[in-house]
């Protein structure tokens, strides 16, 4: 299988640097805005019916590897606090779920050499399966479990909340994720902050 954009050319040196750190911070800032808008736009209690922040998480790790993964679990803490959609202890408990949501797509795209520009049908499948379905299954599963553990939802409502969370986030993240990958990836893969590996 061709490695495509992930192939390190002969003599090409890739090192993590200041620009990656800056990009991670900028990406976190973008996530804060997108996450806050999503939570305030269509709030349904703790579960937003439209949380495009998940697309930022998946796409972040596809473009920026581990840097995107760090941004993925940091920005929801801040955006939840600003939008008032989750209290601090709940936001902290969400961290493993957000981290998983932020790493799975990045891992899958590198593992299966999928093109972030969504050129082939297999790239679309990879994003839909790993970046949307699997990520959101884990995220919604973890999130609804956290809500149950904090007593914020009735234990018997666990599955309903999980399903609502999954559907709401999956649709929003697929729409935004596809737009970002299709239209912004061609620019991103040419920049030096794009990570062919996990950190550079």
């Amino acid at each position, binding site marked *: 299988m061709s490695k495509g954009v992930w192939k390190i050319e002969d003599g090409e040196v890739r090192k993590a*640097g*200041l*620009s990656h*750190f*800056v*990009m*991670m*911070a*900028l*990406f*976190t*800032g*973008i996530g*804060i*805005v*997108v996450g806050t*808008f999503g939570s*305030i*736009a269509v*709030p*349904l*209690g*703790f*579960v937003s019916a*439209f949380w*495009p922040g998940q697309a930022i998480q998946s796409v972040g790790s596809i473009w920026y590897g581990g840097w995107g993964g760090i941004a993925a679990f*940091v*920005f929801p803490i*801040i955006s939840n*606090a*600003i*939008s*008032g*959609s989750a*209290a*601090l*202890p*709940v936001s902290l408990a969400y961290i493993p779920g957000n981290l998983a949501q932020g790493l799975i797509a990045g891992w899958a795209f590198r593992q299966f050499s999928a093109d972030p520009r969504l050129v082939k049908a297999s790239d679309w499948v990879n994003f839909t399966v790993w970046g949307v379905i699997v990520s959101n299954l884990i995220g919604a599963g973890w999130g609804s479990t956290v809500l149950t553990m*904090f*007593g*914020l*939802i*009735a*234990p*018997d*409502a666990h599955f*309903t*909340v999980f399903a609502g969370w999954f559907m709401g986030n999956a649709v*929003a993240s697929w*729409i*935004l994720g596809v*737009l*970002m990958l299709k*239209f*912004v990836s061609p*620019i*991103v893969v040419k*920049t030096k*902050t794009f990570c062919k590996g996990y950190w550079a």
Partner: protein
Amino acid sequence: MAVERKMQKTIIGFVPYQSPIYALHPLVRLVIFLVTGFIPLFVEIPEVNILFLIAIIGLFIYSKVDLKKLKMYMPMVFTVGLFIFVTYLFFPIAKGEKILLYQLGAVKLYYNSIMWATCIYFRIIALLFASIFYFSTNRERDMLIAFRSLKMPFVATYFLGLSLRATGIFMEDYQIIREAEQARGLDVSDLSFVGKIKHFSMYMIPLFTLSIRRCEEISVGLYSKGTVISNKIDGRKRPDYLMSKNPVTQKDIFYSAAIVLFFLAFCSLQVFGGVFSLDNSPINIAILKLLKGG
């Protein structure tokens, strides 16, 4: 006549220009935030969380926060309640004695379930207002000072500062794009729900392109200024301007310690004595008495 502006726009909200709360060091304010962000989790009695909520609103007034700015959170307050009560209505919990209040077809309204929903609702609203209070009385700079006072690594606080500044830059770019669209006659209010979602997504493309360009500019700027994210040169720590202007005094440590001790004492009342359990709620006791006819 010039109108006196009471609130100042920050990257993440509005804070008062003048406030008595600013007399406290940012570290003490952060400790208050952390403590008030956990206290309601140890309380089941709705009355206690309502009192906690009143205390937080009292702090808003004392801190001269314009309460009109809280209007944007009202849909959240309403939908949180709706969400909790609906889930507890359709999926009643087994906790406590089941007392059927009303039945409409297959839907049964149980007292124990609704009472528990009330506990959870006031708990989460108290937590949310504690969080909103912090962001309504602290600027980004205050947050950085507080985290650095707690000896958080420089790299982490630098990342936080840069992220918050990036939020501001992104918001500004968003505003420019929106105004440009409005100038061309786009009225978002006419769009359908699906249209609004699609439109929101379409903002991302120019915004990301601008961010990528900004990343290059900021990186080059930091590099040319000799910025080191570890804040160390030859193994030695560089002077920190923010901390030199806002040193932590003994008084601040005393206040922070006192708040933490109060928190520990409060929590131990629940953990070891169950003082704030629902069974001790006067309203719950009174209603149960009424329902059971005792």
